[in-house]
């Protein structure tokens, strides 16, 4: 019989690392999927997945079982990505104070990874634009949109992940959709070749 998340958590708390391994094997792929959509970057997504599970293991006692275990993981992942963003901003601020440029944004980082013209023309333009569109969202907008649009989590569950009100989640999703639509509209003139 398959070990439930709740039972696996209980056993892991009692020192059974194999029970924790069950949780890792069960949740790691879609946690990577969410992390990738939150960051648009494979390396960062891998880092988030690994750090999320380490933090989860070290803080198993604080999981109260009210939310799904996956939602608890999302919350850890979201908080970690916020931590990372703060670190990056701090580094960027230090760097910029030296060279006097404007603040480096996530969009700049996506632009930095934009592939060359041949690759863009071949297949990457849409993907690049979508990643760029997601990159202009705030962390809260990106997480709320990712969990609702891609993972189809109920609003109430997203509230628990983000630790905020239903109204705030809905507005985060609205803002995210507006920004993404704007980016998509700009694409429409360019991607006639797709249809």
């Amino acid at each position, binding site marked *: 019989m398959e070990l439930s998340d709740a039972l696996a958590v209980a056993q892991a708390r009692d*020192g*059974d*690392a194999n029970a924790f391994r069950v949780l890792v094997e069960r949740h790691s792929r879609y946690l990577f999927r969410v992390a990738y959509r939150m960051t648009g970057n494979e390396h960062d997504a891998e880092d988030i997945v*690994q750090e999320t599970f380490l933090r989860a293991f070290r803080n198993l006692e604080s999981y109260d079982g009210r939310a799904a275990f996956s939602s608890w993981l999302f919350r850890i992942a979201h908080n970690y990505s916020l931590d990372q963003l703060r670190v990056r901003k701090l580094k960027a601020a230090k760097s910029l104070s030296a060279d006097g440029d404007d603040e480096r944004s996530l969009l700049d980082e996506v632009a930095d990874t934009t592939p060359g013209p041949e690759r863009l023309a071949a297949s990457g333009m849409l993907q690049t634009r979508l990643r760029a569109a997601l990159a202009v969202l705030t962390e809260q907008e990106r997480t709320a949109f990712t969990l609702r649009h*891609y993972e189809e989590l109920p609003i109430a569950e997203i509230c628990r992940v983000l630790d905020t009100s239903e109204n705030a989640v809905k507005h985060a999703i609205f803002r995210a959709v507006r920004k993404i639509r704007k980016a998509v509209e700009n694409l429409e003139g360019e991607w006639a070749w797709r249809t």
Partner: protein
Amino acid sequence: MENVTPREHASEEELIAYYYGCEEPAANVAVHLAACGECRASLEGLKRDLHVASELVVPEREAAYEANLWARLAASEPLLAGQKGTGQKGSGLASWRKWFAARHLAPVGALAGLLAVAFLAGRYSNVVTKPEPQHALERGSGKAGMERILAAALDAHLADSERILLDVVNTDAGSEDWTSQRDRAGELVDANRLYRMTAARQGQAALAAVLEDLERVLLELSHSPEEGAAARMTPLRERITDQELVFKLRILQLRLRDQPQRPQGDRKG
């Protein structure tokens, strides 16, 4: 007079909420959409745009993604290290805690000095294949400083071995360049053999078994061919994981480092 006033067009927010199934505006918007072609067109535009957003491709993970992730987690968190695959009844942290209880490993600290003295005696007399651990111990006893240094040598051997095993477990499965790991493993084989033989002679069966497992891995690694190394590494990696070697080595090191120094009054000579 009809008391239902014509509704204004649905706002973008309402359409988004409707699209995502939010309860509050859904009923009203549904009624309005049934009668308003303009809003239905707006909703179709929203669906089209969000459908485009759905095309964001997430890179596929390799088949062994979970296993590789677990290996990385185990390398970062000692309490997760060395655990076998799922579904193995009786394995797990609790059983390892039992195996590594003081009853089994209490003599490890004393043995550390013995092993290290034997190792160094062998090394400096070039009689590596025929160590004389008892004599070496006698020569080393009563020299607290020397014993600490020698215990540190055994600790270093275990740490070096652990690093190699972690390299094997964590290196990309497709890598063909194992020169560094092969050379380092070759350098550790002789010392490990000496430690193992001494542990066996002292009746430390569990410790000797760990060192024997380690020695087989080191030997296999040191003799791995330059060509086709990637294919050879997969079973070796599995053996390291299955035998929980990394975890065992780490526990041995912790026990070594936790050994209290014997008070001077306990020493003779």
